[in-house]
């Protein structure tokens, strides 16, 4: 059964692997223990009292508050509320279209705002750009991940 040293997985999480090491991870059979190992390493790094249940995406985690609630939290400490509600509802939003988009894309590389705009979501705590949606104006926020914790508990996880 495949297993990896903490050091290697820590480097994976913190962008420290060479392309050969990455390829090694991709080529081998997946290690069954990765989920628990990553949670443990992230818990050690962040030193939060509350238990991390899931790494939701870059910078965002679902943590068990210990009072029965599970919330989305940024690694800066900012909380976004219950994980069953889209964390984007508690973020800062910036719509980038037309002239604003020219600060990022030049000339014809900008999409026509009649068709497509960028919706950037920032963490109110640390101003990290957490997501960039490509949507038309008026499109509901995309709720990307809804983990099924009940199934987690009943399944192999």
């Amino acid at each position, binding site marked *: 059964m495949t297993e990896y040293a903490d050091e290697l997985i820590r480097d994976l999480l913190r962008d420290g692997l060479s392309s050969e090491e990455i390829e090694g991870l991709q080529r081998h*059979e997946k290690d069954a223990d990765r989920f628990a190992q990553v949670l443990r390493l992230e818990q050690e790094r962040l030193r939060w009292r509350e238990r991390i249940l899931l790494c*939701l995406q870059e910078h965002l985690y679902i943590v068990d508050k210990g009072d029965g609630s599970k919330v989305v939290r940024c690694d800066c400490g900012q909380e976004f509320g219950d994980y069953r509600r889209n964390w984007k509802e508690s973020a800062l939003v910036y719509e980038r279209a037309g002239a604003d988009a020219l600060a990022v894309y030049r000339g014809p590389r900008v999409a026509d705002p009649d068709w497509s705009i960028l919706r950037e979501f920032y963490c109110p705590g640390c101003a990290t750009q957490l997501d960039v949606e490509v949507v038309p104006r008026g499109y509901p926020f995309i709720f990307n991940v809804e983990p099924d914790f009940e199934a987690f508990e009943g399944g192999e996880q």
Partner: protein
Amino acid sequence: MSLQERLRERDRRVADLGWYEERLELKERDPIGFELLYSKMVQLVTSAHEVARRVSASPMSRELGEIIFGLYTPEGDAVALSRGLLIHVHTMSRMIKWMIEHGYEDDPGFAEGDHYFNNDPYIGGAHCPDQMIVTPIWWEGELVGWAGGLTHTPETGGSEPGGFIPFARSRFDEGLFLPCVKVAEHDMIKRDLEVLVERGIRSPIFWLTDNRAKITGSQMIREEVKGLIRQFGVDYFAKACREYIEDTRLAAEQRIRKVLPPGTYREVGWRGSVMPGDETLLHGPVAMTVTREGRLSFDYEGMSPAGRHPFQGTLPTIEGLVMNVAIQHLFYDLKHNEGVLLAVDLNVPEGSAGNPPSIFYPTALWGIAYGAGLASGQAISRAYYAKGYREEVHATSALSSAYTAGGLDQYGRPFGAHNFEFAAAGLFATAVMDGLDTAGVEFNPEGEMGDAEIWEQMLPPLYLSREIHIDGGGYGKYRGGNGVMSLYLVSGTNDIEIGGFGAAPIYSAPGLMGGYPASALYMWVGSRTNIHRLIDEGRPIPSGEGEDPANPDFVRMVEARWELIPGANRPARPAREGDLFTAMTGDGGGFGDPIERDPDLVRRDLENRVTTHWTTRHVYCVAIDPETLEVDAEETERLRRARRDERWRDGVPAQQYKARERERVLSGDFAKPTARMFHAVLGSSEAFRRAFLEFWGLPETWEMADPDREAEEVA
């Protein structure tokens, strides 16, 4: 039992009992023989692939590898596949099943040496250029399987040259369809059908030599399978074929349980139809669900309805795409066969642009089906991330684009074709490294761009340049791969028309988790140029776009009537010697916040001239000395802090943003392409309507006005 009865029995078994083969007896009893036979099957389809490439005269097959071979069960389920154009393995399966369901066994019959051709995407394939040939494999009076091959032809005889018809309004613009037609008997090609192709399309040599390639490959597979049957026995062979599929199904379910956490993962792909007067954004959402039992489902509820434009796909296309995405991102090390699809559930709403209500609807660019298929890969990435397998997480692949041309070529012969160098587009960024530049495409992981000289033989335009599309890939902590932008010179003919296929002017490949999407697609066309004068006088000529896409080198250096086509979708228009135009292959999406990018990676990109000082400063907020390329860490830190301050200043709390945007929704303040999309999807998907009303806090009775009816009334 007839094949039709066997197919029904197979469908019933899978639906009612959930398995394909009840017990893996051979695998248990004879594991080495079992694997040995499979490796021989893979070997023979791979040999067929390699030999067939060299039989064809089409650069698509020879140079680019747009070709694939497979071995199928009597019921048409894929058992073993060659490398190549992965998306089409399943579409050949659909073709075999269609013939069985439609009574072909009795009439016209499946005799040894018969070869059936199909390019009807409603039977199997994605569009008219996808052309497949299958042949039955007989053993002592019993049909024991099928061999088949598929190629992508660069010309179909459509209303415009090149197979990708960017403004097809109906199927009947797309070219010559031959739905499940017998093109060879006793292994001899039927001459009358070749005449049909010779006089029905612009460049018949590609289609006809591709047919020879496919028939050659299929015959090779057929004969070598007979050798395997002699060696292993027919019962062993037949049982093993079924077990390989069941083996994959079981392994796929196990893989899903192991690597994907239970939950629902949502993404949205976009494309757009630019049909004049009916410009419409197209919606391609996907909700991927993983259950605790290890079932994986992809639900495309809310996909835009079918319409009179070429940006839709058929059901076999979506099935093929899901199989393609699942094999590449989840099941890469399993036996690639029908078992993959048996482990996955799909819902593609009837009447949608991924499952059109009739064969009338054109699929030349199968855009939104492709968009939704790529979004499915994003959903898998989200799940991988949650489980900690970050080495498998990636943003979106490129949206492809190229030019088409037709007329009389440099040798005075009728021709039509598209350039297909977009098989080497920029790949997506991953969670752990940059996307590869000029690397590949999702639908054919092993595609190549082909030598410029080969394209120059095949099509009259000459390359003035073929360069990396600098900064085309989406920005991010890890950037998307850059594709290619080529600058072409029309040469050797004045009887030629040039077009382009691409998309609407949308961002092409979305980023992931804070990464930006890739550049929008675009095409430049310069007519009445002074390029020949520049050459004659020995003055500098452009070698591409240069570092400022807002003021490209070719526009600065060449006097011409320049036209910019945002989205790069352009009907074929007459051109003359000396005209210039560009085409781009598309770029990959970025991953993560760009201001977290390692400044050293930015410096390396500058050294390699795949990014610019403008982007370095404005997007990555990295201060680099333009002469020495040394990073100023302190100034970089200050720029990045300032960018965060900007975000705090300009970012609006989500609830405030929603209150503002709700007013826009209530007043219907949308541009036409967006309004048409919303109106169509709200009317066709109750689930989307409910989610939309809930998100914006709108009353149950709220309805969106029909943007076109309103315009008619005003008129």
